[in-house]
């Protein structure tokens, strides 16, 4: 299939309504899979410990180092689905949000108007951990708690649950989860305080991520397994590129330059407010590939193209991508 070219954004001509321009497929599409994820050896060990002790795993690390992907990778690796059941913590999140949401307005409205279902369970929407616990119980035991459309295979099953950026949530959030995470049990007051407890063998595997923006309560930390994903080095970057982008080798001239550039950008020689991480690197390479650059070329030969793509790499406020590129080129000349 031919990839359509990028539209000319400088042309004054406006296309007629109803005839939108055809855009090329996203360079990232199909690449954000667990298959190409290269976990840190320490992370693998942390996974092993988690499997042995069945405790939640808290992963920290710089943004873009693959914390979220780690949960998907584990789920994929254990054959529990392509992706983990995900819950994105927010500043307003409460502990109940992790298990289910109850549409009290809808239920109230239904009660008022006598329209729609009069069962409370129909107004329940299970979220990540609630779904995982429900799946860890045989279907026949939870028929009364299954809302319409809930997928349950019947026999109990294991799941991986990702609670992303838990540090964004209010301080009460992790504290309220202590008992639930330890016993994998929760109650639904709307269903007569129905208790749902995961079978011991199929207790969900919970992975939490944090950007360390906020200290988590020590009581919560004590119940978790912890791993900090270290900053990848040049070799790790090379392996990640080969794995995640594909079709390139670390020995390709352009890839060599790119690796040098990102190493330079992450070093203390450069003052950047936001240092590029793995995700930025992958984006940068994908964009360059989309723009049709040749892997045999050097960055200095395609400086304008690289400069245009550097917005994927340099994101900090006040960070000058042109200055970064110039500085790097100077180091190349001197070396």
């Amino acid at each position, binding site marked *: 299939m031919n990839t359509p070219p990028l539209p000319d954004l400088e042309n004054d001509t406006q296309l007629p309504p109803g005839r939108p321009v055809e855009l090329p497929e996203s360079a990232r599409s199909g690449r954000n899979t667990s298959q190409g994820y290269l976990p840190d050896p320490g992370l693998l060990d942390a996974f092993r*410990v988690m499997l042995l*002790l069945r405790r939640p795993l808290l992963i920290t690390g710089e943004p873009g180092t693959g914390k979220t992907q780690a949960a998907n990778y584990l789920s994929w690796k254990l054959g529990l689905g392509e992706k983990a059941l995900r819950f994105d913590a927010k500043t307003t999140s409460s502990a109940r949000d992790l298990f289910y949401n109850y549409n009290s307005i809808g239920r109230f409205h239904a009660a008022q108007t006598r329209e729609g279902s009069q069962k409370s369970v129909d107004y329940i929407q299970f979220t990540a951990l609630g779904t995982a616990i429900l799946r860890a119980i045989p279907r026949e035991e939870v028929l009364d708690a299954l809302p319409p459309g809930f997928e349950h295979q019947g026999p109990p099953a294991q799941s991986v649950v990702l609670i992303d950026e838990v540090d964004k949530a209010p301080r009460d959030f992790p504290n309220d989860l202590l008992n639930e995470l330890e016993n994998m049990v929760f109650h639904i007051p709307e269903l007569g305080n129905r208790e749902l407890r995961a079978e011991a063998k199929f207790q969900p595997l919970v992975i939490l991520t944090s950007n360390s923006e906020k200290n988590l*309560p020590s009581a919560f930390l004590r119940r978790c397994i912890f791993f900090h994903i270290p900053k990848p080095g040049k070799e790790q970057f090379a392996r990640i590129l080969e794995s995640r982008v594909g079709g390139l080798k670390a020995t390709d001239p352009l890839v060599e330059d790119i690796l040098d550039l990102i190493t330079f950008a992450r070093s203390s020689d450069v003052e950047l407010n936001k240092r590029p991480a793995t995700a930025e690197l992958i984006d940068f390479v994908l964009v360059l590939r989309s723009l049709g650059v040749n892997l045999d070329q050097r960055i200095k030969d395609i400086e304008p193209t690289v400069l245009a793509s550097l917005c994927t790499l340099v994101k900090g406020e006040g960070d000058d991508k042109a200055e970064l590129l110039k500085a790097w080129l100077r180091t190349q000349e001197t070396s």
Partner: protein
Amino acid sequence: MIPKELSIAEFLDWLRDGHSGFEASDQQYLAARELIKRLLESDTEKIFPAAAWSRLLAPVLCSSQTQQSEFYDLFDKWFHKPKLENETAAQNSQRTPAKWNQDRWLYSLAVLTFAIVVGWTIVRILPKPPKHIVVTTTPGSLTTASKNYVELTNVGIRVEFADAPVGYAKLSYDGLTKSSDHDGFIALPKSAPATYLQVTADGFRPAVVPFPKTNGVVVLTRPTPVTLPRADGRWLSTYGTGLRIALMALPSLLFILWLIQRWRRALELRRWESAMEPRMRRLGTPPRKEPLFPTSEIRKLATALRRRRSEESAELDVSGTVEKTCHEYGWFSPVYAKRTSEPEYLFVGERKNLLDQQARLQDELLSRLRDHDVFVQRYYFQSDPSICSDLKGDVYSLNELAVMHPHYELWLALDSGACLEPVSGEPKAWFTPLEQWRERALLSFTQPRTSLGMPVAAPTRRGLESLAGDSPHRVAVKPYPKLLLDHPERWVQRVEPPEANTPQLELQVLLYLGKEGYLLLQACAVYPALAWNITLALAAELLPADQREDVLGKLSSLPWFRHSTMPDWLRVRLLGRLGSNEPRVRLALRNFLDQTKVGTSEKKETLDIVPGKPMQSQGRLALEDHVFLSFASGRRLDKLSVEAPRKWSKFLRDSAYLRISLALLSMAVIWLVLGRMLLELNHWLHAQPGQLVTPEPPSNPFAAELYIVAKALDTTPGRGLSSKSEEPDLILYSRIASDVLGVKNPFPTETSLRLSGRASDQAEIRPGMVVDYRGRLQIVEAVANGKAKLFHSDIWRSPLELNTVYDLSGMAMPPHVALTPPSNNPRSDISAVSGTPANNNGAGTSALPSRSGQVAQSVLSAVISAENGPPVATRVSVASPRLFDDTSKKLSDGVGELQFGMSWTQVNEKLNPQFRDSGYQGLPIAGEFAPTEVRYMWVRLSQIQGTEFANYLSLFKPFQPCMQNGSQSYIVFLFQNDQLIRVSSRFFNDCPDRDQLFKDFVSDLGLRIDFPPDTKGVNFTIGRTNVSWLLGTDPNPDTLDIWKVGSSVPTTDIFNPTESNRHYASPTTSAKPR
């Protein structure tokens, strides 16, 4: 290899005991134990490689990125310590490349020089194989021995072995050989001169016995097989190599002494400027005994701060909504739920620098609050709060903080004066963004001049308590020193402000801090730098527990503690007022420093010092003050210095000198080991295969006698010498030999015996030879495999260790003399016979001169068993040493001025009247000296009066009547080759009472003689002169002969032990009784 569970468990225990500084909860440790158990239950070999153990344990035990990296470090330290040290060393060297480069050439040069010196020394001392063989044997000339009148009453000896007679033993005697009969008896001649007899028998060691050994028993011994050393495996003897090692190690020992001397000097901590980036050493300081903030108070404060507060939520309050909707007649009226939440705090505080002690105090407080689950986010700023930074150094503006932490309660820790414009008194521009926080407070020790629209509390625990309370109130603190309010930085300058009113400042500070606080301020001035942990330690030592917190709060607000430096002028002032508290403060400080440890994690409290004194920084801008560790060089420490604990001398390892010294020491050790190996290799290459041999005593009688004496000393139980200083050597042997053989000084001069070259150059070393081992002459017992075994030693010595060899095989057997039995005092006889004046206190009471003399007598007793023999010698003792000495001088080489060796002419000139002028050849020949040509001349005794020698002779009473009245007695001068050799006087009956004459002569000489009934004469030696008085039987004259030792004697002389005149020595020719 996977570490064993026990090791991991020990590691966990080590982590948990607190010494590592790693903190984890009991729950985490339990989880780690459970993990280990599960891992060990599973197939760990396949699943978990060894390196993964740290990665497996870290997730369980760590709760943050910092803890994770700390854990990895600790794990490496526990299981791979050397690697960690190497890395640290590498990091250190990377940190100071210039320093290393600067020293490297010095190290290299020193090591190279040392290697050359040691190598050259070893090459020099390494013995070389002999290039040529020189064998020179020069036996010493023996002095003439004399003999006494002897009488043999027994005629044989019996040869026994183990109480059984030895048949067919052979006696070698004067060229003849006699065999023993089946009873072991060998008949001896009745008239035999004193000599040595050698008894041999097959299978026995030869025995050499003195003759006469009448009626004695000679006990033969079987030779003892000698166990040989291995030809190739024996190390060099300890002493020879040890000496070389000692010589080689001497420089090293001097280095060690130098280092010890260096280390003994006092170490001091002093502040110095440094022109280059110094290499800091971080010391972990001891944990605090008790927390700064009382736990109960912190818990109370934390509870107050964590008190939940009500707030609206976006959720619907179902029951409230139903109720309200009902009230509204079914009109949907939602009611939102209220919810409570813990408050979160944003602490934005000023930090002058990284060592700002007020910031540290606030950090401590916040840390304790965090421990009690109070959520506080900490940001710092330097003078201007509009730019803040977090612990990681990320920078944020106040607006950004407001966005990031909108619902937080803001605590701004800043001096209130800094919030207002100095002129207008209005809040500064950066104050506006603060209004974005609904809840905010100012933490300051001073109240602002104008209201800032927010509560003000002290930046202390009590201040926060007031904020957490329902009604924040003004903080009552003592007035801050006015002089410090405006431009407090001027008080931190090195130079005292000229306009300063320092006494007033001191007063204000005293009022502000109080008496206890002021003492703490003074104590903090002792250490050359202000350090938070030292401040805390001194506070714990000097202040009551209930005052520490308040005092530290106020103290840390002073500019010196904010800027973490105190100028020396102020230190001197404060220390000057310490008074009697100074020893107490210094002791507390030293105790604190004494507990510091090297190598610590960043998390611990630390103290930075710089080992070594800074280099000269002339012409270079000093970077910064640091606390340097240096030597006080024995001088007294000044007030601004602190004596460092002795154990801190380990930091001197960073010293270039020390590294050079250690390198040299290492080289010395290597060279010593290498040198020894080379010596062994050299010996191994030249070693000969060994064989079992039996040492044979030498055939030469003299050497054999020495051998027997040495053997007796070596093997006789109870006769050995205990003290090393009395170890037998050739001097002792020779003394014993002289006792036995009657030989004085058997080795007259060393050069006559000395062989050229080292012992290793000799062709052969044989038993009985005398060798010089470590400066002492000893006798070789056996030789095998090219090595020699000495008496009194079980070690086989290499020829390399034997410096000189004396071969006695050519030495003549001296004539024997009569011996006294052991029960008598042989020493007196020996002295008299040999002419050596003995140190005698009287007849029969002389003490043996030395231990060697006693040994000599003991050995003599062991060797000679003639217990039952009759007295064979006259006892002579010296009664008057003084007269004897005077006389001996006159008679030492002649008679007065008549010296032996003078020509006939010279002698004749002394006479008055002179002998006829016939010339030497005209003198008559004395026939009794034939075949030697000896000529003589004579004069009557009455004719020598007036001559010098006559005057001398007249000192002896016998001469006086003869010289005055004698017409028959005369004196004879005998010459050989025209040299005077003998003066002989003949006393006839014209000399009245010759018996008395004889006794007077002996008495005048100072000799006390116990004459046996049949005494025929006396013979003795003085110096080089022999004197004999032979009593004549009337009408024969008495004869007094004075002659030079070694000169010709007449064949008729009864004292001349020749075969022809043996009858004169017969005891049967008894002289007339006196």
